[in-house]
């Protein structure tokens, strides 16, 4: 008893252990149950519901983001192919028009050459005709001259 009678108190003392101990233990256990139903459960429910909500939203947003990225990549490839297709078409059209131009040029050249040739031939025939005529006239003239000379004699 002396050991538990520190500081000379007539009864009790600092280390006076009595029924306060078990009753306090019972009180704390009761408090645990009260706090569990009053504090830990309801607050936990709200917090965990919100955490679930937030994490779900984050997952959803991530899914959406990846979908957007996929769509973007899709669009990029489509754009790329459209661009190359356009390039191809433009190139083809250029070739085509080039070809057409060349054909037209050739045709025009040919035509021009042909008409030039025809004209030349015509000129030539006319020249020869004129020459014939001239020589014939010359012949006639010479015959006339000759005849006149003969007749005067």
């Amino acid at each position, binding site marked *: 008893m002396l050991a538990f009678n*520190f500081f*000379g*108190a007539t009864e*009790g003392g600092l280390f006076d252990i009595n029924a*306060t101990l078990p009753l*306090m233990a019972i009180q*704390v256990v009761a408090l645990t149950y009260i706090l569990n139903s009053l504090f*830990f459960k309801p*607050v936990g429910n709200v917090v965990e519901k919100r955490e679930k909500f937030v994490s779900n939203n984050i997952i959803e947003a991530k899914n959406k983001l990846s979908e957007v990225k996929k769509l973007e990549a899709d669009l990029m490839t489509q754009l790329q192919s459209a661009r190359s297709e356009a390039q191809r078409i433009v190139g083809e059209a250029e070739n085509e028009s080039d070809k057409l131009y060349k054909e037209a040029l050739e045709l025009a050249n040919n035509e021009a050459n042909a008409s030039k040739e025809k004209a030349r031939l015509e000129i030539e025939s006319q020249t020869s005709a004129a020459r014939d005529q001239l020589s014939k006239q010359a012949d006639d003239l010479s015959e006339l001259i000759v005849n006149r000379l003969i007749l005067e004699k």
Partner: protein
Amino acid sequence: MFLNSLLTNFAALEVGQHLYWQIGNIRLHGQVFLTSWILLGALLVFISLGTKKMENDPKGLQNLLEFLWDYIRDLARTQIGEKVYRDWMPFIGTLFLFVFVSNWGGALIPWRLIKLPSGELGAPTADINTTIALALLVSLSYFYAGLSNKGWRYFEYYIHPTPIMLPFKILEDFTKPLSLSFRLFGNILADELVVGVLVFLVPLILPIPVMFLGLFTSAIQALIFATLAAYYIGEAVEEHH
């Protein structure tokens, strides 16, 4: 003997004096129950106010209570582990809240103004009965946690990692509640005594920094008690491989 008579005759300090309640054969320390009822009543009122209207968008008190809940969950989760912390969170949280409210209530409320026929009001945790009760509850809890989670395999803990540890582990079962209870009791009682003596000797200004230090120690002791309780439970449920 001189020290004894000096301390008993300290007019302002009544060390080791209790307000006895006699119920049949049992005697209780009335002042411990009085203060604990006042403080726990305040705590329960505070919590009921905060949880009265729970919303998804927390406002006011609910914010504070959610912060507290989160703090306790983190404490329990880091010490006990992901698997069983939910079962023990209310107990760890109650220990923390009880010790914290008791310590701070004892330090912040000027109990000395209320005169009792014998003894004086103060922190319930400055009474050895309270701290031993808490420490024994922790001991029971970790035994229960170990046995309910692992059955008889719980006792493998005593020979882990080698059977040489057996006497030390058995000794630990006694030192754990002893250190838990005496650490809390000693710190809070010492704080009350230091503040009391300083107020008695120098009633102006000088006790104020010591009072702040007391508030700090009080909070730290609550945290230490809850953390160690959680650690002991975590140790008991931990799986050794």
